[in-house]
């Protein structure tokens, strides 16, 4: 079936938390970032940040790039694209359905 991918539950779960959204925003804006670097912008521990990053990673929203002892995180937009695609496609379908409803009431 050729329907757009629905955003997965893991994406919703990952984005349900405000701190995780903040972290994702920072990673998106700053480019490759370490958990340690994020501690200067957030009032939570490095361990807490690492946990959030791990959930974002499980949802496919960030990618980890390990070089030596350092892990840098990069934002991945694809899962959010799924969400935008869902809204666009769903809206278009309703426009077509409502047009058919209008048509059916004319006859």
């Amino acid at each position: 079936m050729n329907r757009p991918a629905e955003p997965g539950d893991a994406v919703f779960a990952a984005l349900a938390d405000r701190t995780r959204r903040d972290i994702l925003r920072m990673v998106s804006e700053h480019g490759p970032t370490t958990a340690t670097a994020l501690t200067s912008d957030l009032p939570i521990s490095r361990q807490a940040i690492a946990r959030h990053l791990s959930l974002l990673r499980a949802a496919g929203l960030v990618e980890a790039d390990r070089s030596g002892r350092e892990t840098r995180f990069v934002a991945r937009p694809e899962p959010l694209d799924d969400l935008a695609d869902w809204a666009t496609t769903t809206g278009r379908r309703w426009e077509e359905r409502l047009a058919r409803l209008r048509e059916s009431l004319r006859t």
Partner: protein
Amino acid sequence: MEQDLPEVHRSVELDADLTAVWDAVADPERRAGWLDDDEAAAREVRVESVDDGHALAWTWWHPDDPASASRVEIVLTELASGGTRVAVTERLVGTTGTITARASATATAGSLWVYRLLGLELVLFTARALVG
């Protein structure tokens, strides 16, 4: 203020009166006549609520993909002109079952909490932060 969920809204104003529009919306056979497309026909439907002559809500999903579940609400309003406004809201809900299965790291799984913080902010954020 944050919206609860990702939602889509569409509405039309029709010349037909409320009763005629309600019949076309509420009667399953007539509804299928304008509603069904590839997507709608492939979904299982569970009607959630009926407010006679006014509103209808259902949840529907692809049988092979519980995460596709969404809730549709159709509300009819009588217009001063004698016509009828049809307002549709479709909201992605997913399912608590798949959340429970996947989100082992989130102890609060099982309720709909995960969806409550998504919405407009996220869409705006997507557009702003991920371009370039």
